[in-house]
């Protein structure tokens, strides 16, 4: 091979399958056109002020940002988002762990129970939301009727129609659908644990509770952290259940950042303001997930 031939081969190299470029190009193109470009466009949009009367957009970089930070509705939405995330996550994690421990058995029939437990994961969340809307109806919903029968709530009480109980009502659908996610991951973690430490602990007279806190939990920490991270990110951008069950209401009682952005968008078409709230959601997700990954040293 002459020098010029080698040079020519180098130049053409990136077009052949030996070079990573052709392999990565389709995915990169998709991510640039439908991910990076809209994201930049959304960020730029937040720098414009929409004049409601003339419907023109004027460059005014701080207008939307000062507006949303002075907006009590945004702070409420932020607070709802964080409360929703933390409470639902705690329930899902604790219930998920307990159910995983319960179902972690090689006895006959448990395989079927474990398979059944995964079914809620594939239901469209909008469908789940509608179905819980039915079951939580104060006058004929089966769950609401059962709660009312215990005397905790007055007859005909509308769980989703009262601001005090609307958010917990939405969370019920969320917890029902995604606790199985935790169960599934915790089960995978439990099944991968080595047997020897537990046998040794049993010989030393450790109780099952001690073994759980001293052995199971520490050995499962990586698995738990990954599950919390993935679920937490999804919870921070919660939208589906809220949209179909309460549409952020009553009033703004169940408004999260994502649903607030959607309401601005559908309501008064103030795209710049809606984009600001949407970008704030992104910032929140990035901040919390980065801090979480640093503290717990998780890597996906």
């Amino acid at each position, binding site marked *: 091979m002459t020098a010029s031939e080698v040079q020519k081969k180098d130049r053409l190299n990136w077009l052949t399958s030996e070079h*990573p470029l052709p*392999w990565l190009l389709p995915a990169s193109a*998709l991510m640039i056109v*439908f991910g990076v470009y809209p994201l930049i466009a959304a960020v730029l949009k937040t720098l414009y002020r929409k004049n409601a009367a003339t419907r023109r957009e004027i460059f005014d970089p701080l207008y939307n940002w000062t507006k949303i930070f002075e907006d009590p509705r945004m702070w409420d939405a932020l607070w709802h988002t964080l409360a929703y995330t933390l409470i639902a996550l705690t329930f899902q994690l604790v219930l998920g762990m307990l159910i995983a421990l319960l179902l972690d058995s090689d006895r006959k029939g448990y395989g079927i129970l474990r398979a059944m437990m995964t079914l809620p994961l594939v*239901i469209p969340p909008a469908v789940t939301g509608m179905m819980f809307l039915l079951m939580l109806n104060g006058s004929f919903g089966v769950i609401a*009727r059962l709660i009312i029968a215990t005397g905790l709530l007055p007859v005909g009480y509308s769980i989703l129609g009262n601001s005090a109980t609307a958010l917990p009502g939405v969370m019920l659908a969320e917890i029902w659908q995604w606790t*199985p996610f935790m169960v599934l991951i915790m089960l995978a*973690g439990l099944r991968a644990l080595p047997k020897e430490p537990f046998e040794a602990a049993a010989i030393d007279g450790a109780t099952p509770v001690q073994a759980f806190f001293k052995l199971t939990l520490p050995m499962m920490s990586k698995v738990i952290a990954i599950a919390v991270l993935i679920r937490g990110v999804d919870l921070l951008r919660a939208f589906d259940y809220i949209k179909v069950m309460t549409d952020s209401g009553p009033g703004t009682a169940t408004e999260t950042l994502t649903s607030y952005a959607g309401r601005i968008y559908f309501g008064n078409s103030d795209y710049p303001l809606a984009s600001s709230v949407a*970008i704030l959601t992104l910032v929140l997700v990035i901040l919390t997930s980065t801090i979480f990954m640093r503290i717990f040293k998780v890597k996906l």
Partner: protein
Amino acid sequence: MELSRPWQFARDALAAFVTGVFMFPIFWWALTSIKPISAVFDKDRIVWFDFIPTSINYAVTLLGQSRSQLAIDAGIGMGVAGTEAYDSRSSILDSAVVSVGATAVTMMVAIPAAYALSRMAFRGRNVFLNWVLGQRFMPPIAIIFPLVTTYKWLGMRDTDNYYLGWLGLMLIYALMNLPIAVLLLKSFFDDVPKDVDEAAMIDGATRWETFCKIVLPMAKGGVAAAAVLCFIFSWTEFLLSLFLTTDIRTVPVKIQTFVTSTGNEWGFITALGTAAVIPGFIFILLVQRHLVRGLTLGSLKE
């Protein structure tokens, strides 16, 4: 752990009970979907099994029949007019086409990327990996407004052209599925021993040939699992479809339109809802083995 017999029995019973509690809502929807209206809206008691089952809700939502006609035929009154809005056949078609198309697009772009990430050493590999992963963390709300504007500008909205509307949804769903597909496929490709394709390349095969003839066939179970997961995620997606399309109504978007100012059509909602979960139930049983790996983006294996 060995338990004594009564304890073991208690555990079995508790395990069955807890699973039952989680299955109950699904059972209740399916039951409600075959109830006549009087049993659904009974304010005095909860109706369990003492009703005459009806298929009317399925006939209207899945077969597009007219409720008033069905009611007249059955001799139970005049029925209510205007049930065309509950005919969900076009929504099921929309959902099916978009989900299948999105899965195909995802796989076409994700498989090569996953292969490169699994087999090639190159500058910027980690950057690319984090880019893909970062995509999974992005809230869809952050990109949807500019996309609506862009689609409008390109004439790609479903109101401009129905088929382009399908394509538009497929592409954005493909983006949403991409992180899970790439990372999951990478983990499956990593499982194929590298010696095999290195040996083939020493024998003069190009990368493309080793990929097509060795790596891809050896990882086909994983590819199938990734495709099934992409289908499920597309089938269940709600936000993007809600914001992006008007005429095209995927099933999750359609079902929430059954909430009307005059009352919620619970019969139709439960019928369509029950029908909408069936594809997922079938598919999930097929990928049971790879589910954990898929849901954790390839980082946990079962």
